[in-house]
Structure formats: C-alpha cells, structure tokens
C-alpha cells in the first residue's frame, strides 16, 4: 500500500471525524473513536455535543482521556452525572451517534466484543464483553463503527457472539426483537475503506476506498459478500492541519498514535 505522510490510523481518524455532523450529539468511549470525535469538534463540528458513558456531559477536553471516565472526560463539563442517566438520555432520543468497535463484525453490522470460539464456558479468547457497547448500539440513533486490521478473521460471515446488535438477521429484525425503530449501524470505517448499509437489505456496502486501495482489496479482506455502491469513491487523505491537530492538540502524549 502506498501511503504517504500519514498512517492508516490517522486516515481512519480523519474519515471517521467527517461522519459526525455539527450540532449533533455523540456518545463515545476512548481510543480512535474519541480522537475522531475531538478532531470533528476541532474542525467542522465545533458545536458537537460529547457525552461519556461514565457521566461526563459536554466537557472542554483539554487532551485525550485515556480511560472512558477519567478526569479529562469531566474537565469543565456542563454536567457530571451517572452512567444510568447517560443511558436514559440515549434512550430518550438525545444522542445521534454512538461510536463503537469490536473484535468481529458481520455483514449486518453485528459486533462481537465478547469471545472467540464456540464454547461460551471455555472460549478460545475472552474479550471484555459489552461494556456500554450494546447499550449504545441499541439506543443511539446511528452507530458508527471503527474496525482496524480489516481482514477475513474480523469481517466474518457469522460472528461468534453477537455482543452488540447491528441489523441482527436482516431488515426489520431490530424492530421485531424490540429495539427502537430507525436505529442501527450507519457507517463502518476500516483501515481499507468506508462502508454504509444498503437501505433495503441492511447489508454492508462499500462506498469508498482509502487512497491506494481497490475494491478487489476490500473484497479479498472481507469474509462475507459485500455490496458495492454504484460509484465507489476515494476517501480524502488527512490534511496537514488535521495531522497537526491529531498530534499536537488531541494526542500529544501518543496514546493512540504511538510515537
């Protein structure tokens, strides 16, 4: 891959940031999703409302928090509250975006962050579990998903465990199971490309490749059959200003972008 002057993680952060509209609300954890959120707030979305699971509402983030509820997430916040109040707030319809990741994802955007293997009692790998992911993915209007290391072991036909609901088993499935109407994953940002979900089938659809990546590369890296948009675009590489913000303002200590 012929990337220049920027890393794939930086590119992912920039592409992810662009998915967030100004004057909307996002519930976010830490890591790359938070970097993307902070970048959006520093660029095109200054009035983006940031909400943290542990209870921080609209802080003035001085630097990247390294833990989901650390002091930075309540720095000069407008409100500090409880986790359950945050969940209630999302359920009440105030939160537009949830930003999630996972170990595995399938074509309906179902996420696994619980385990690898087929024996629940003795998994091959035990991951952290839902945390707030299932809550966010159930309750927020749109779920934005960031997955690095795009490959067939992570993009699978069937996840070993549905931790967080995507479109479950297809159109209407979320509603059938009791989840809120008009919710679900809207974008998947990987280190190869950008997906949305085709409205009729609710299946993952390639809409843009990163510079230097082809549709074939994406097909090869994905363990299920993807839909492909009529016109597959190319994502914008990070600008100098974006890179400056990422390294100097957002993550000066290099927690996400290791130095």
């Amino acid at each position, binding site marked *: 891959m012929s990337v220049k002057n920027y890393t794939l993680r930086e590119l992912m952060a920039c592409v992810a940031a662009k998915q967030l509209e100004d004057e909307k609300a996002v519930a976010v954890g830490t*890591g790359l999703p938070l970097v993307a959120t902070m970048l959006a707030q520093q660029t095109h979305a200054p009035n983006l409302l940031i909400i943290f699971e542990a209870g921080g509402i609209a802080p003035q983030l001085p630097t990247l928090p390294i833990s989901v509820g650390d002091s930075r997430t309540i720095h000069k916040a407008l409100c500090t509250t409880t986790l*359950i109040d945050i*969940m209630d707030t999302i*359920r009440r319809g105030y939160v537009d975006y949830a930003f999630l990741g996972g170990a595995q994802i399938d074509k309906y955007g179902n996420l696994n962050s619980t385990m690898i293997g087929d024996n629940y009692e*003795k998994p091959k790998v*035990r991951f952290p579990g839902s945390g*707030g992911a299932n809550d966010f993915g159930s309750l927020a209007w749109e779920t934005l998903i960031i997955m690095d290391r795009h490959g067939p072991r992570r993009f699978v036909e069937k996840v070993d*465990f549905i931790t967080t609901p995507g479109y*479950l088993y297809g159109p209407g499935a979320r509603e059938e199971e009791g*989840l809120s109407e008009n919710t679900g994953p809207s974008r998947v940002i990987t280190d190869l490309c950008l997906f949305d979900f085709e409205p009729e089938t609710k299946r993952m659809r390639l809409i843009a490749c990163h510079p230097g990546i082809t549709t074939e590369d994406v097909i090869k890296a994905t363990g299920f059959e993807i839909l492909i948009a009529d016109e597959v675009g190319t994502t914008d590489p990070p600008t100098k200003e974006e890179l400056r913000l990422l390294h100097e303002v957002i993550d000066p200590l290099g927690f996400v972008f290791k130095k």
Partner: protein
Amino acid sequence: MEMKILKEGSGEIFCKNTPAEVRKWTRENKSRALKDKRMRLKDAVKKFIKDGDYLAIGGFGHIRVPMATIYEIVRQKIKDLSVAGHTAVQDIDVLMAGGCVKNVDIAYVVGFELRGLSGVQRRLFENGQVKKTDYTNGAMSYRLRAGAQGIPFIPVKVMLGTDTMMHSPGKVVKCPFTGEKVLLLPSLNPDVCIIHAHRADMYGNVQIDGHIVKDDLQARASKRVIVTCEELVDTEVIRADPGKTVIPFYMVDAVTEHPWGSHPGNMPYKYYFDHEFTEDYLAAGRNKDPKVLKNWLDEWIYNINDFYEYLEKLGARRLYTLRDVEFLRPPVRGS
C-alpha cells in the same frame, strides 16, 4: 390478559438476594442512629465481607476505584466472591489474581481499555475456572436501580436480539400498555459494596465530586457499604452542603480515611492515573511465569501490613507528581 414470556436467556443469577429479603434484613441489621463508624479498613473488611459474598465495586474502570479496600480483601484471602463487573479493570483483576473470585457478572472486565487485555482474567475465564453471566453496563445499572427501588425486576430496552441477552437471565415480554417488547432483568442487591469517595463524616455521610457513575445506586441496593475517603470531615461540612451527599449515613457500615485510596486509579480533582504502576502490574499478570505475578502480589499486598505501607513504598514524590498530572501542570517535585 397475559404477558407471555417470548424468549429468555440462560444466564445464571449469581446474586441470590431479593429486595423483599434485603428489606427485612435491613430492618434488623442497619442502624438508623448517628453512630461513629470509623474503623480500620482491616477490621471493616473482616467484619463485613464474608467468603461467598456478592461484591459491587465503586467508581468506573480506573476511576475512583476503592483500591485500598481491594488490596485488603486480597490480603485477607477472602474466597469465592461473586463480583459485579460493571466496568471493572484493575480492581477486579487484582481480586482475581489473588484468587478471591468465583463468579462474575460481566459487563466489562478482562480489558484494560487502551492498554489491552489482562493475562490473569483471560486464563481464568478461558479455562472456565471463574464462572460468568453476560450483561451490559446499562443492564447492570438498571439491575441496581431495581435493587435500590426494592422491586424484583425492571424492564429495559437494551440487550434485545443479541447473544448478550441469551447469556443473561433476561426475559422478553410485551408491555401490557403499549404492546412493545421489553426485556425484564432481575434486580441486583449485592451483599456488600465498597466505595472510595472524596469526603465523608464519621457517621458515613458520603460526598463525591464529579461524576457519580453508579455509586449512588450501588449503595442503595447493597446490604453493606464500606467507604474509604480521601478526607474525613466534620459533620458540619456535610450539613453545609447537603445536596452533595450522595450516600446518607444509615446506608454505610464503615468509614476509613485513606488518602490516595484509588491509586493507581484516577481520583478526579485529586490525582491522575499512575500509568507505570498499572503497566507493571499488567505485565506481571501477562507473564507466563506465574512467579512474576506472585512476586508482585507479595511485594504490594501480602508482605505489607496495610495501605499506608503501600503509600510509603510509592513515596511522596511519586504520589504528588500524580497530582500535577491531574491538574495538567508540569510536575516540579524537588527543592
């Protein structure tokens, strides 16, 4: 008319307390009088935490975690605990490293967030040595809300449609008013909850600065509440700002002043994480040679007497540097 149970999960309920029993227990065991509840943490843990208890831990992940109490539980080798893994990181990891844990209600464990996965917990969960039931953070808080409210179940709109639900004890029904599907979860009334707060008085009136996370619910839902605090204050301080009292005294069984009690965790407005300490611990737990972890536990828990010795080992300079980091100022420590 009937509410049919349309689907149900297979997860085991580890905490057997019901609100009706806990209510009765409260009448007989909790004092409503203003009594001096200060005691050594050692005595509080001995008196109020028993083998097999269900334990809820305050704070969130690495933030405002009652680490002094966690270390004391490990030091006393309390066994067979069930633990609420309602985002639990180093707290539950140390308990599991110390062999104290039998069952975990998992919302978020095993992970150290950006720092990666825990070796200790992977081993114990992957070989089935520690049993588990899966939930979400929202679900665990909702279960605590039900426990605090004294109702045996609560409807929620999360977990529906997922394997997380199928491995929980949740039951799906239709609302008898609107017809929409909801998940019913059983209430959670832990045997004991441990909390680290900014301040408390000797009666157990507890105040927390910043986000409360779930400590208010936990204290209300639990039978026993053990509190450590950065600062023990006069009751007049509490009465001067009663809106800040998150936990009133009658819920609390023991109070101990333990400055730095969340170390290596972050105490908002007091001190930031001790990142290196956590990395060292995590490395010990990941090491294939179990002796490395054993040495860590010996050094920081078993071979010392209490949390003050732990602080002395860390040293004042290291600790106060964490205060500088918390306040985003350059650490200048030395004359």
